[in-house]
Protein backbone atom coordinates (compact mmCIF):
# COMPACT_ATOMS: atom_id res chain seq x y z
CA UNK A 1 0.00 0.00 0.00
CA UNK A 2 2.87 2.34 0.79
CA UNK A 3 3.84 2.28 -2.91
CA UNK A 4 0.46 3.40 -4.12
CA UNK A 5 1.11 6.85 -5.52
CA UNK A 6 -1.13 9.61 -6.67
CA UNK A 7 -0.48 10.22 -10.40
CA UNK A 8 -0.37 13.97 -9.97
CA UNK A 9 1.67 14.64 -6.87
CA UNK A 10 3.40 11.37 -5.95
CA UNK A 11 1.67 11.42 -2.57
CA UNK A 12 0.74 8.09 -1.06
CA UNK A 13 -3.05 8.01 -1.16
CA UNK A 14 -3.21 6.28 2.17
CA UNK A 15 -1.09 8.92 3.85
CA UNK A 16 -3.01 11.67 2.16
CA UNK A 17 -6.29 10.22 3.40
CA UNK A 18 -4.97 9.82 6.92
CA UNK A 19 -3.75 13.41 7.16
CA UNK A 20 -6.98 14.66 5.67
CA UNK A 21 -9.03 12.61 8.11
CA UNK A 22 -7.10 13.84 11.13
CA UNK A 23 -6.87 17.51 10.28
CA UNK A 24 -9.87 18.49 8.17
CA UNK A 25 -12.24 17.32 10.88
CA UNK A 26 -10.67 19.65 13.45
CA UNK A 27 -12.97 22.63 13.47
CA UNK A 28 -11.65 24.64 16.35
CA UNK A 29 -8.27 25.66 17.62
CA UNK A 30 -5.83 22.94 18.50
CA UNK A 31 -2.22 22.20 19.17
CA UNK A 32 -1.30 18.83 17.70
CA UNK A 33 1.85 16.77 17.79
CA UNK A 34 2.17 14.94 14.48
CA UNK A 35 4.67 12.08 14.58
CA UNK A 36 5.69 10.88 11.13
CA UNK A 37 8.10 8.34 9.65
CA UNK A 38 11.23 9.99 8.28
CA UNK A 39 10.52 8.74 4.74
CA UNK A 40 7.01 10.22 4.80
CA UNK A 41 8.10 13.56 6.17
CA UNK A 42 8.44 15.47 2.89
CA UNK A 43 5.03 14.30 1.70
CA UNK A 44 3.38 15.12 4.99
CA UNK A 45 4.35 18.76 5.11
CA UNK A 46 3.10 19.27 1.55
CA UNK A 47 -0.25 17.73 2.37
CA UNK A 48 -0.60 19.69 5.60
CA UNK A 49 0.07 23.02 3.96
CA UNK A 50 -2.34 22.18 1.13
CA UNK A 51 -5.11 21.34 3.60
CA UNK A 52 -4.56 24.46 5.69
CA UNK A 53 -3.85 26.90 2.87
CA UNK A 54 -5.65 25.67 -0.20
CA UNK A 55 -8.71 24.11 1.39
CA UNK A 56 -9.14 26.16 4.57
CA UNK A 57 -7.71 29.36 3.01
CA UNK A 58 -5.75 30.14 6.16
CA UNK A 59 -2.66 32.32 6.40
CA UNK A 60 0.12 30.91 8.51
CA UNK A 61 3.70 30.56 9.63
CA UNK A 62 5.97 27.65 8.72
CA UNK A 63 9.10 27.14 10.83
CA UNK A 64 11.75 25.15 9.03
CA UNK A 65 14.54 23.59 11.04
CA UNK A 66 15.44 20.83 8.62
CA UNK A 67 15.69 22.32 5.15
CA UNK A 68 16.79 25.85 4.16
CA UNK A 69 14.00 28.11 2.96
CA UNK A 70 15.42 28.12 -0.58
CA UNK A 71 15.15 24.34 -0.88
CA UNK A 72 11.82 24.16 0.89
CA UNK A 73 10.38 26.75 -1.48
CA UNK A 74 11.53 24.65 -4.44
CA UNK A 75 9.94 21.59 -2.82
CA UNK A 76 6.64 23.42 -2.34
CA UNK A 77 6.78 25.00 -5.83
CA UNK A 78 7.31 21.61 -7.42
CA UNK A 79 4.11 20.42 -5.74
CA UNK A 80 2.23 23.56 -6.75
CA UNK A 81 1.74 24.78 -3.19
CA UNK A 82 0.54 28.38 -3.08
CA UNK A 83 2.95 30.27 -0.82
CA UNK A 84 0.94 33.50 -0.65
CA UNK A 85 0.13 34.50 2.96
CA UNK A 86 2.65 31.99 4.25
CA UNK A 87 5.55 33.34 6.30
CA UNK A 88 8.62 31.17 6.79
CA UNK A 89 11.04 31.19 9.68
CA UNK A 90 14.29 29.57 8.59
CA UNK A 91 16.57 28.19 11.33
CA UNK A 92 18.94 26.40 8.96
CA UNK A 93 20.47 28.77 6.39
CA UNK A 94 22.46 31.00 8.75
CA UNK A 95 23.74 28.04 10.74
CA UNK A 96 25.15 26.47 7.58
CA UNK A 97 27.21 29.60 6.99
CA UNK A 98 25.33 30.43 3.83
CA UNK A 99 24.48 34.10 3.49
CA UNK A 100 20.75 34.56 3.97
CA UNK A 101 19.30 36.50 1.04
CA UNK A 102 16.65 39.01 2.02
CA UNK A 103 13.30 37.41 1.32
CA UNK A 104 9.93 39.07 1.55
CA UNK A 105 8.17 36.15 3.22
CA UNK A 106 11.04 34.61 5.18
CA UNK A 107 12.78 35.59 8.41
CA UNK A 108 16.08 33.98 9.32
CA UNK A 109 16.98 32.84 12.84
CA UNK A 110 20.58 32.05 13.79
CA UNK A 111 20.20 28.31 14.38
CA UNK A 112 17.84 25.70 15.85
CA UNK A 113 19.41 26.26 19.27
CA UNK A 114 18.28 29.91 19.34
CA UNK A 115 14.98 29.14 21.04
CA UNK A 116 14.49 32.58 22.53
CA UNK A 117 15.15 34.25 19.17
CA UNK A 118 12.78 31.78 17.53
CA UNK A 119 10.08 32.55 20.06
CA UNK A 120 10.45 36.32 19.61
CA UNK A 121 10.50 36.01 15.80
CA UNK A 122 7.48 33.73 15.80
CA UNK A 123 5.53 36.11 18.01
CA UNK A 124 6.18 38.97 15.59
CA UNK A 125 5.32 36.83 12.54
CA UNK A 126 2.03 35.63 14.06
CA UNK A 127 1.14 39.19 15.11
CA UNK A 128 1.63 40.42 11.53
CA UNK A 129 -1.01 38.06 10.21
CA UNK A 130 -4.28 39.90 10.01
CA UNK A 131 -7.45 38.14 11.02
CA UNK A 132 -8.30 35.67 13.69
CA UNK A 133 -7.85 32.35 11.90
CA UNK A 134 -4.26 31.28 11.25
CA UNK A 135 -1.95 28.31 11.58
CA UNK A 136 1.55 27.43 12.63
CA UNK A 137 3.61 24.45 11.50
CA UNK A 138 6.79 23.72 13.43
CA UNK A 139 9.10 21.54 11.35
CA UNK A 140 10.23 20.01 13.60
CA UNK A 141 10.43 19.41 17.34
CA UNK A 142 12.73 16.45 16.68
CA UNK A 143 15.26 18.88 15.16
CA UNK A 144 14.94 21.15 18.20
CA UNK A 145 15.67 18.13 20.38
CA UNK A 146 18.91 17.50 18.49
CA UNK A 147 20.22 21.02 19.06
CA UNK A 148 18.88 21.74 22.54
CA UNK A 149 18.58 20.03 25.88
CA UNK A 150 15.26 18.20 26.36
CA UNK A 151 14.36 20.52 29.23
CA UNK A 152 14.78 23.64 27.08
CA UNK A 153 12.60 22.18 24.29
CA UNK A 154 9.95 21.16 26.83
CA UNK A 155 9.93 24.67 28.26
CA UNK A 156 9.74 26.18 24.78
CA UNK A 157 6.95 23.85 23.63
CA UNK A 158 4.94 24.45 26.77
CA UNK A 159 5.26 28.21 26.30
CA UNK A 160 4.39 27.90 22.60
CA UNK A 161 1.33 25.71 23.19
CA UNK A 162 0.00 28.10 25.83
CA UNK A 163 0.57 31.09 23.58
CA UNK A 164 -1.27 29.42 20.70
CA UNK A 165 -4.21 28.66 22.97
CA UNK A 166 -4.34 32.27 24.14
CA UNK A 167 -4.95 33.29 20.52
CA UNK A 168 -8.34 31.87 19.54
CA UNK A 169 -8.50 30.73 15.95
CA UNK A 170 -4.95 29.46 15.82
CA UNK A 171 -4.11 25.93 14.79
CA UNK A 172 -0.67 24.64 15.72
CA UNK A 173 0.96 21.52 14.34
CA UNK A 174 4.25 20.36 15.76
CA UNK A 175 5.92 17.88 13.43
CA UNK A 176 8.29 15.22 14.74
CA UNK A 177 10.17 12.16 13.60
CA UNK A 178 10.35 9.67 16.43
CA UNK A 179 13.71 8.05 17.19
CA UNK A 180 14.93 5.89 20.05
CA UNK A 181 16.74 8.94 21.42
CA UNK A 182 13.79 11.34 21.48
CA UNK A 183 10.98 8.91 22.40
CA UNK A 184 10.79 10.01 26.05
CA UNK A 185 11.02 13.69 25.22
CA UNK A 186 8.19 13.39 22.67
CA UNK A 187 6.03 11.67 25.28
CA UNK A 188 6.62 14.63 27.58
CA UNK A 189 5.83 17.13 24.79
CA UNK A 190 2.62 15.24 23.97
CA UNK A 191 1.26 16.33 27.36
CA UNK A 192 1.24 19.96 26.23
CA UNK A 193 -0.74 19.17 23.08
CA UNK A 194 -4.48 18.65 22.57
CA UNK A 195 -3.96 15.81 20.17
CA UNK A 196 -1.24 13.41 19.13
CA UNK A 197 -1.40 11.94 15.63
CA UNK A 198 0.95 9.12 14.68
CA UNK A 199 1.50 8.45 11.00
CA UNK A 200 4.06 5.70 11.40
Amino acid sequence: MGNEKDRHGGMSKRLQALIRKEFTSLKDDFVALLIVDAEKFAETNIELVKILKHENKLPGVYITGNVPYKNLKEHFDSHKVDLKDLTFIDMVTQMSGEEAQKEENCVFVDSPDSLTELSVTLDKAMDKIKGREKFLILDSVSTLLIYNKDRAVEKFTHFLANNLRENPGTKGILLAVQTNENKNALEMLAQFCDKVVKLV
Partner: protein
Amino acid sequence: MAADLERTKTGLVGLDKLIGGGIPKGNLVVMSGDPGSGKTCLCLQFLYEGATKFNENGVFISLEEDVEELEKFSTLFDWDFKELIAKKKIKIVNVELYDFDKLLTTIEDTVSSINAERLVIDPGVVFRLYFKTELEARKRILGLGKMLKRMNVTTVITNELSMERAKSLYGLEEYVADGVILLYHTKLENRFVRSIGILKMRGTKISEKLHPLEISKEGVKVLSEQELFEEI
Protein backbone atom coordinates in the same frame (compact mmCIF):
# COMPACT_ATOMS: atom_id res chain seq x y z
CA MET B 1 -0.43 45.82 47.59
CA ALA B 2 1.18 46.79 44.29
CA ALA B 3 -1.69 49.09 43.32
CA ASP B 4 -1.39 51.25 46.46
CA LEU B 5 2.08 52.55 45.76
CA GLU B 6 2.83 55.63 43.70
CA ARG B 7 5.21 54.49 41.00
CA THR B 8 7.87 55.98 38.78
CA LYS B 9 7.33 54.47 35.35
CA THR B 10 10.64 53.57 33.78
CA GLY B 11 9.02 54.20 30.39
CA LEU B 12 10.23 50.81 29.17
CA VAL B 13 6.84 49.17 28.70
CA GLY B 14 8.14 45.62 29.13
CA LEU B 15 10.12 46.43 32.26
CA ASP B 16 7.20 48.29 33.84
CA LYS B 17 5.03 45.21 33.25
CA LEU B 18 7.53 43.07 35.14
CA ILE B 19 7.56 45.37 38.18
CA GLY B 20 3.91 46.16 38.71
CA GLY B 21 3.83 49.35 36.64
CA GLY B 22 7.08 51.00 37.69
CA ILE B 23 9.58 51.49 40.50
CA PRO B 24 7.83 52.60 43.70
CA LYS B 25 8.44 56.36 43.92
CA GLY B 26 11.49 57.36 45.94
CA ASN B 27 12.87 53.85 45.99
CA LEU B 28 16.47 52.86 45.40
CA VAL B 29 17.17 50.15 42.85
CA VAL B 30 20.47 48.44 42.20
CA MET B 31 20.86 47.36 38.59
CA SER B 32 23.55 44.73 38.25
CA GLY B 33 24.74 43.53 34.88
CA ASP B 34 27.47 41.93 32.83
CA PRO B 35 29.60 44.20 30.65
CA GLY B 36 27.62 44.94 27.48
CA SER B 37 24.32 43.92 29.01
CA GLY B 38 22.78 47.36 28.46
CA LYS B 39 23.05 48.96 31.95
CA THR B 40 24.15 52.42 30.86
CA CYS B 41 21.75 52.40 27.92
CA LEU B 42 18.83 51.42 30.14
CA CYS B 43 19.72 54.10 32.70
CA LEU B 44 19.94 56.85 30.08
CA GLN B 45 16.62 55.66 28.70
CA PHE B 46 15.09 55.79 32.20
CA LEU B 47 16.02 59.48 32.36
CA TYR B 48 15.05 60.22 28.75
CA GLU B 49 11.63 58.60 29.07
CA GLY B 50 11.05 60.43 32.36
CA ALA B 51 11.83 63.82 30.84
CA THR B 52 9.98 63.32 27.56
CA LYS B 53 6.96 61.25 28.54
CA PHE B 54 6.32 61.94 32.21
CA ASN B 55 7.68 65.48 32.66
CA GLU B 56 10.07 64.25 35.38
CA ASN B 57 13.53 65.75 35.44
CA GLY B 58 16.54 63.52 35.90
CA VAL B 59 20.18 63.54 36.94
CA PHE B 60 22.95 61.22 35.76
CA ILE B 61 25.96 61.09 38.09
CA SER B 62 28.83 59.53 36.19
CA LEU B 63 31.69 58.20 38.28
CA GLU B 64 33.60 56.87 35.32
CA GLU B 65 32.74 58.23 31.90
CA ASP B 66 33.06 61.86 30.82
CA VAL B 67 29.91 63.82 30.11
CA GLU B 68 31.01 64.13 26.46
CA GLU B 69 31.39 60.36 26.16
CA LEU B 70 27.91 59.79 27.55
CA GLU B 71 26.42 62.40 25.24
CA LYS B 72 28.22 60.72 22.34
CA PHE B 73 26.92 57.31 23.49
CA SER B 74 23.37 58.67 23.60
CA THR B 75 23.60 59.67 19.92
CA LEU B 76 23.71 55.97 19.03
CA PHE B 77 20.01 56.00 19.91
CA ASP B 78 17.06 58.11 18.79
CA TRP B 79 17.40 60.39 21.82
CA ASP B 80 18.08 64.10 21.82
CA PHE B 81 19.84 64.62 25.15
CA LYS B 82 21.40 67.93 24.11
CA GLU B 83 17.99 69.57 23.90
CA LEU B 84 16.88 68.12 27.25
CA ILE B 85 20.11 69.28 28.89
CA ALA B 86 19.68 72.75 27.40
CA LYS B 87 16.14 72.88 28.77
CA LYS B 88 17.43 71.76 32.21
CA LYS B 89 15.26 68.66 32.11
CA ILE B 90 18.32 66.47 32.46
CA LYS B 91 21.76 67.05 34.01
CA ILE B 92 24.75 64.80 33.44
CA VAL B 93 27.58 65.33 35.92
CA ASN B 94 30.97 63.67 36.04
CA VAL B 95 32.29 63.41 39.63
CA GLU B 96 35.97 62.90 40.29
CA LEU B 97 37.03 60.11 42.58
CA TYR B 98 38.69 61.66 45.58
CA ASP B 99 36.16 62.92 48.09
CA PHE B 100 33.03 60.96 49.05
CA ASP B 101 31.55 63.92 50.93
CA LYS B 102 31.90 66.00 47.77
CA LEU B 103 30.03 63.27 45.88
CA LEU B 104 27.15 63.42 48.38
CA THR B 105 27.01 67.21 48.16
CA THR B 106 27.11 67.11 44.35
CA ILE B 107 24.24 64.63 44.28
CA GLU B 108 22.09 66.73 46.62
CA ASP B 109 22.85 70.01 44.89
CA THR B 110 22.36 68.69 41.36
CA VAL B 111 19.10 66.94 42.16
CA SER B 112 17.67 69.99 43.90
CA SER B 113 18.91 72.39 41.19
CA ILE B 114 16.42 70.98 38.66
CA ASN B 115 13.96 69.37 41.07
CA ALA B 116 14.92 65.99 39.71
CA GLU B 117 12.64 63.07 40.46
CA ARG B 118 14.95 60.51 38.86
CA LEU B 119 18.60 59.83 39.58
CA VAL B 120 21.17 57.47 38.14
CA ILE B 121 24.59 56.78 39.66
CA ASP B 122 26.88 54.85 37.32
CA PRO B 123 28.78 52.71 38.17
CA GLY B 124 28.31 52.00 41.87
CA VAL B 125 31.15 49.49 41.85
CA VAL B 126 33.72 52.30 42.04
CA PHE B 127 32.39 53.53 45.43
CA ARG B 128 34.98 51.29 47.06
CA LEU B 129 37.78 53.36 45.55
CA TYR B 130 36.88 56.29 47.82
CA PHE B 131 37.84 54.40 50.98
CA LYS B 132 40.87 52.82 52.62
CA THR B 133 39.02 50.09 54.48
CA GLU B 134 36.04 47.92 53.70
CA LEU B 135 34.40 48.83 57.00
CA GLU B 136 34.57 52.53 56.20
CA ALA B 137 33.21 51.83 52.69
CA ARG B 138 30.32 49.85 54.08
CA LYS B 139 29.32 52.55 56.62
CA ARG B 140 29.48 55.42 54.17
CA ILE B 141 27.79 53.62 51.27
CA LEU B 142 24.91 52.61 53.52
CA GLY B 143 24.75 56.29 54.53
CA LEU B 144 24.47 57.27 50.86
CA GLY B 145 21.55 54.89 50.44
CA LYS B 146 19.74 56.40 53.40
CA MET B 147 20.38 59.93 52.12
CA LEU B 148 18.90 59.05 48.72
CA LYS B 149 15.79 57.68 50.33
CA ARG B 150 15.39 60.82 52.42
CA MET B 151 15.58 62.87 49.21
CA ASN B 152 12.64 60.83 47.83
CA VAL B 153 14.25 60.67 44.41
CA THR B 154 13.77 57.43 42.49
CA THR B 155 17.32 56.17 42.08
CA VAL B 156 19.07 53.55 40.00
CA ILE B 157 22.64 52.63 40.93
CA THR B 158 24.46 50.36 38.51
CA ASN B 159 26.66 47.50 39.59
CA GLU B 160 28.71 44.87 37.80
CA LEU B 161 28.17 41.18 37.55
CA SER B 162 31.23 39.01 37.40
CA MET B 163 31.29 35.24 37.02
CA GLU B 164 27.50 35.33 37.26
CA ARG B 165 27.66 36.93 40.71
CA ALA B 166 27.17 40.56 41.53
CA LYS B 167 30.14 42.29 43.09
CA SER B 168 29.09 43.54 46.49
CA LEU B 169 28.09 47.14 46.96
CA TYR B 170 28.93 46.73 50.65
CA GLY B 171 25.47 45.92 51.84
CA LEU B 172 23.67 48.55 49.79
CA GLU B 173 21.82 45.95 47.74
CA GLU B 174 21.00 43.76 50.75
CA TYR B 175 20.10 46.35 53.38
CA VAL B 176 19.14 49.60 51.69
CA ALA B 177 18.10 48.91 48.12
CA ASP B 178 14.38 48.39 47.62
CA GLY B 179 14.91 46.61 44.34
CA VAL B 180 17.53 44.62 42.51
CA ILE B 181 17.39 44.18 38.73
CA LEU B 182 19.80 41.79 37.02
CA LEU B 183 20.92 42.17 33.41
CA TYR B 184 22.73 39.26 31.79
CA HIS B 185 24.82 39.21 28.64
CA THR B 186 25.70 35.56 28.53
CA LYS B 187 27.98 33.72 26.16
CA LEU B 188 26.46 30.48 25.02
CA GLU B 189 28.30 27.98 22.85
CA ASN B 190 28.37 30.13 19.74
CA ARG B 191 26.59 33.39 20.55
CA PHE B 192 25.54 35.86 23.20
CA VAL B 193 22.09 36.27 24.66
CA ARG B 194 20.78 39.24 26.64
CA SER B 195 18.19 38.88 29.37
CA ILE B 196 16.71 40.59 32.41
CA GLY B 197 15.46 39.29 35.74
CA ILE B 198 13.97 41.01 38.78
CA LEU B 199 15.54 39.76 41.99
CA LYS B 200 13.46 41.95 44.26
CA MET B 201 11.21 45.02 44.18
CA ARG B 202 9.67 46.18 47.43
CA GLY B 203 5.86 46.07 47.61
CA THR B 204 5.65 44.53 44.19
CA LYS B 205 4.65 41.17 42.76
CA ILE B 206 7.46 40.40 40.35
CA SER B 207 8.04 37.97 37.52
CA GLU B 208 10.41 35.23 38.62
CA LYS B 209 11.47 34.39 35.09
CA LEU B 210 14.27 35.65 32.91
CA HIS B 211 13.03 37.64 29.94
CA PRO B 212 14.90 38.49 26.73
CA LEU B 213 16.14 41.98 25.87
CA GLU B 214 16.59 43.66 22.52
CA ILE B 215 18.77 46.72 21.99
CA SER B 216 18.13 48.86 18.94
CA LYS B 217 18.18 52.53 17.91
CA GLU B 218 15.08 53.00 20.08
CA GLY B 219 17.02 51.76 23.12
CA VAL B 220 16.38 48.74 25.30
CA LYS B 221 13.22 46.74 24.76
CA VAL B 222 12.26 44.28 27.48
CA LEU B 223 10.25 41.42 26.00
CA SER B 224 8.11 40.79 29.04
CA GLU B 225 5.73 38.46 27.20
CA GLN B 226 8.65 36.26 26.19
CA GLU B 227 10.80 33.93 28.25
CA LEU B 228 14.42 32.96 28.00
CA PHE B 229 14.70 29.31 27.01
CA GLU B 230 18.46 28.94 26.94
CA GLU B 231 20.13 27.89 30.17
CA ILE B 232 22.54 30.57 31.32
